[in-house]
């Protein structure tokens, strides 16, 4: 599977309600050593109800300059959410389906850990 398989895929709740489409995959570098790096897993998917792609990640980073561009791109990505991998039920026919009771999280990117 390659990342592009996931990007752009529609995301539906367990009831079939559309959440949006996958605009990014959040990775967690928290596994055991894997060569020079650590094993890196898919932690969740960033889902946007409006934008097809996320440009420059203004809605996730808190960067607010240049102001006009930041406002426009944040508006374009309004309503974006993060869904965790543990809340994904299936990925078939290029559609991601969530488990019943899946939680939606803020997509803001807070760099954590070492």
């Amino acid at each position, binding site marked *: *599977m390659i990342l592009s398989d996931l990007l752009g895929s529609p995301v539906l709740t367990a009831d079939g309600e559309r959440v949006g489409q996958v605009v990014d995959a959040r*990775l967690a570098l928290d596994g055991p050593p894997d060569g*020079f790096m650590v094993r890196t897993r898919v932690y969740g998917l960033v889902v946007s109800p409006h934008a097809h792609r996320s440009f*420059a990640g203004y809605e996730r980073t808190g960067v607010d300059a240049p102001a006009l561009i930041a406002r426009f791109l944040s508006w374009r990505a309004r309503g974006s959410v993060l869904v965790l991998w543990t809340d*994904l039920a299936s990925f078939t026919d290029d559609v991601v389906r969530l488990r019943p009771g899946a939680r939606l*999280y*803020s997509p803001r990117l807070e760099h*954590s*850990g070492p």
Partner: protein
Amino acid sequence: MRNDRELPAPPPVAGRVLDADLELLDRQILDPDGVPISAVDDLELSTPADLARLDPQHPPVVQALLTGPILMTRIFGGRLPESRFIRIPWSIVTRVGTVVSVGAAADSLDASWTERWMRDHVISRIPGGRHDPE
């Protein structure tokens, strides 16, 4: 309209977190000597055993950076077949920042074969093409 300020923050992660499209794709890949190798065009992820019933305990892991001739697909749409990509194993990546650094020399990787071919078959046959400018 849903406001992300109303949404809770996700559970914390012990290690670093990064968004693949935002912080990996299109980044330049450099070898230990700073020689450009290519750019990150895609990522190879492990495929879950059963896509119809995803296992929450076994998320996909990053296996390789992929690089390939994606210019035409970006202009005209569509997707490059997986077989056209060249893999750079994730295990040789040493750092992810504004560039992606790998721990192997550019000449030892398949991703730089076009540069090597051009150097050996074209540039070296041009008078003066076998040494640095003086």
